[in-house]
């Protein structure tokens, strides 16, 4: 790799190179902030775009919750769309809401914010590279998100509204435009959007793998990489192997819809009282193809968060990561097993029950690595000097919540029990504990932790903790109750379940959950305010505000173009905290070997 030798810009530098902007300021601005090939700028572009979609997704969720809690009542603001009906939303509008909530959260928030935002920003910094292996590819990976943004965004305004067949997009509901209002133009746009997200992720993952393999700083062996990088690396592998299947399946569905192929449509059904045309297909085929990507995707959506949490925890426990290699092996294990468990989404789908048994076994096995990781995190906390920074609180809550999400998974893995709780609020609780209480918490931890590196200033700790506290309370209020709703068998995706005798008494509980959800979204205002206020007025951060060990902390905050002012040389792993015989409680990866350090101290 090229050794970086240009003069270090020092603490005060911003991302923009000083001066030289005179002749063509616009072009300069564009190339620096918009079509930049600098991994940090691209990372931030990902971060900001995804945070905007995070807000949209949250608001969609509120609308969904409103209908679930008070079906057919006048919806605030949205009700205007249904003035003739006195403001009550129509059922197909509701199905559109939850479909797009999931779609936005998964494809436009979680996946891109982890790989796109943090992956881009952190990988070169943490491995001591001056940039990604393929900067242009990297830029493209961001700009390929825009067609997706536009497709998903536009689909709300087309005839019939956006896709409304659930984020899993099961045919024949999706392949036959007559089957549901959202299966018209909206579904086509959905598939197009999905394809572009795929392309973007693919470009990203290729880039990450190459960078991590080829551009590590001298001395940075694979087993000196921070967990974040390991997680990103495995994630990239998952993406690279699973994505093509989804893309292919997406095109097959597109063909079924547009040119009348019949991959997923069976012979002779009557949909919306019309005989269907093409036939001979098999709806289950889509489910297999879809989950072959989407189950690994579940890990794509959590592994990077696990990595980041591991790094943040060690830093604020001032203690080496407990079981570094086991952690890596379990990540790899999750990735490996992740490819042979997709069938557990299909236990009652009509798939051969014998197949269900095998998938049950593999699914039970994939619980192991997760358990190992959890125990290791506990081990990391044990005997540490825990500092309750906001980032640390979010990390701890990640572990605490991940335990819940992980354990509830075992219920679904057990096929007989799954017969009852499949497609009930139990599963809704499960994946919200993993994805929101897990990943989202990890993401916040990451933001609070690396914010100084991103903007050269630290976020406000007091309001950070307020934000954590409220979010933590409200999220449990919202999602924990879902478990017992699921125990009643309360099905997901019903616009109004209360006309079933079995469920009509659950309305008050749903109302409570909706209040919590409103609170949860509302308190993100604190985060937004803190985020933008600190960007400009936060206290200036030095290079290493948390006294952490990673390479990124040897670079200026924010790092200039090319990241490091001196080429970092790595002497040790990233978790050398509280090393005996060394009076400062952390040894950075670049610090010269211990003997010399001690000698220097004398």
């Amino acid at each position, binding site marked *: 790799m090229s050794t970086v030798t240009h003069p270090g810009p020092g603490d005060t530098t911003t991302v923009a190179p000083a001066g030289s902007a005179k002749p063509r300021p616009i072009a300069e601005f564009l190339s620096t902030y918009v079509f930049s090939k600098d991994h940090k700028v691209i990372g931030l572009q990902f971060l900001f775009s995804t945070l905007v979609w995070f807000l949209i997704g949250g608001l969609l969720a509120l609308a969904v919750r409103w209908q679930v809690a008070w079906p057919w009542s006048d919806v605030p603001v949205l009700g205007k*769309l*249904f*003035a*003739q009906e006195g403001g009550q939303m129509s059922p*197909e509008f509701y199905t559109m809401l939850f479909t797009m909530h999931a779609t936005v959260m998964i494809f436009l928030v979680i996946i891109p914010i982890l790989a796109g935002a943090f992956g881009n920003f952190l990988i070169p910094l943490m491995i001591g590279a001056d940039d990604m292996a393929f900067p242009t590819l990297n830029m493209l990976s961001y700009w390929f998100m825009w067609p997706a943004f536009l497709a998903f965004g536009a689909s709300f305004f087309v005839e*019939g509204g956006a896709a409304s067949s659930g984020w899993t997009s099961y045919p024949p509901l999706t392949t036959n435009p007559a089957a549901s*209002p959202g299966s018209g133009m909206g579904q086509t746009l959905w598939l197009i959007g999905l394809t572009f997200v795929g392309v973007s992720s693919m470009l990203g993952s290729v880039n990450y793998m190459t960078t991590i393999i080829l551009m590590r700083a001298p001395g940075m062996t694979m087993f000196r990489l921070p967990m974040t990088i390991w997680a990103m690396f495995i994630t990239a592998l998952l993406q690279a192997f699973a994505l093509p299947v989804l893309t292919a399946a997406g095109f097959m569905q597109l063909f079924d819809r547009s040119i009348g192929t019949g991959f997923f449509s069976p012979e002779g059904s009557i949909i919306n009282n019309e005989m269907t045309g093409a036939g001979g297909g098999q709806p289950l085929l889509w489910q297999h193809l879809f989950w072959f990507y989407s189950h690994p995707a579940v890990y794509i959506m959590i592994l990077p968060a696990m990595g980041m949490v591991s790094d943040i925890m060690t830093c604020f426990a001032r203690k080496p990561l407990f079981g570094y290699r086991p952690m890596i092996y379990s990540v790899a294990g999750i990735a490996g097993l992740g490819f042979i468990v997709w069938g557990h989404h299909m236990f009652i789908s009509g798939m051969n029950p014998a197949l269900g048994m095998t998938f049950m076994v593999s699914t039970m096995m994939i619980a192991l690595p997760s358990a190992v990781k959890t125990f290791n995190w506990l081990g990391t906390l044990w005997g540490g000097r825990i500092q309750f920074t906001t980032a640390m609180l979010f990390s701890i809550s990640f572990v605490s919540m991940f335990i819940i999400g992980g354990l509830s998974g075992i219920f679904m893995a057990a096929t007989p029990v799954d017969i009852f709780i499949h497609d009930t609020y139990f599963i809704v609780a499960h994946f919200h504990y993993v994805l929101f209480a897990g990943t989202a918490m990890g993401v916040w931890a990451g933001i609070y932790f690396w914010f100084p590196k991103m903007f050269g200033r630290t976020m406000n700790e007091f309001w950070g903790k307020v934000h954590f506290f409220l979010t933590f309370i409200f999220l449990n209020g919202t999602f924990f109750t879902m478990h017992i709703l699921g125990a009643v068998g309360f099905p997901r995706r019903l616009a109004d379940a209360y006309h079933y005798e079995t469920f009509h008494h659950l309305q008050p509980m749903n109302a409570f959950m909706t209040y919590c959800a409103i609170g949860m979204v509302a308190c993100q205002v604190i985060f937004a305010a803190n985020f933008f206020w600190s960007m400009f007025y936060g206290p200036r951060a030095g290079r290493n505000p948390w006294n952490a060990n990673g390479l990124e902390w040897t670079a200026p905050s924010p790092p200039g173009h090319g990241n490091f002012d001196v080429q970092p040389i790595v002497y040790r792993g990233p978790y050398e905290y509280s090393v005996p015989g060394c009076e400062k409680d952390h040894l950075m990866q670049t610090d010269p070997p211990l003997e010399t350090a001690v000698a220097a101290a004398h």
Partner: protein
Amino acid sequence: MGCGQGRLVAPTPDREAAETLRVALSSEDASSDDGAGAAASTGTGWGTLTGRFVFVGTPPAAKQLIVDKDTAVCTAEGRKLFDQSLQVDESTGGLANVVVFARKVSRVKEREIAEEPLVFDQKVCEFLTPVFAARVGQPIDVRNSDPIGHNTNVSGTSFNQLIPAGEGTLFTPSRETGMPTMVTCNIHPWMKAYAVFREDGYVAVSSADGSFTLPDLPAGEEVELQVWHERSTGPNGALGADMPAYDWSSKGRFTVTLEADQTTNIGDIEIPASALGG
């Protein structure tokens, strides 16, 4: 999302007015003045009204109808079917199939309803009488002189009947139609005719030469008549004409006062092509 975007803003009811009106309506002993306001009957005699409709200008060529069923019968040996909505007499320019009926009369002459049924026939997939008038209560023999089956559907009435080949069915209209109502055959969707039924039987259809005759109308007082043509661009097919003498309105109405036992001829009524959407 089907929320009716871009819909016209509908007028909102006047709440107070509605309230007061509701009270008025729910009170049983509301003033029951005969709002119908039939003109006070003065005269005693009876007169006859005649006239003639003349088409001004050259009539457009009739459209050919698309015949896609029973062609063996309907379009045997290359026969073509044409749209009959505008029938003009080449020599005299008389406009046929114009309906004239009394809209307001103070008296109705006692005439017993004819027993023998009027014949409404269909042959080679056409209604032989494209416009057809009858008195309420007068039996109509709906025939089918074709070797194939038809059904006759008089919209707005209870009558939509199968008419087997060569057979007929009796139909006795029980309600007035107001303006003429459409008669169709659903088996052969191109078949179309119009029927008008009146309580008082004061109704006439202009003949091939455009002339019509309405006998036994009350004389010595104003009689208001309504004129209709299938092609008319006026509201509900009302046929307007430029005849100030009878203050002929755009709603296709005119008034005359007849002499007892006389035939009053209002002469030629000129109908411009534009009035018939041509």
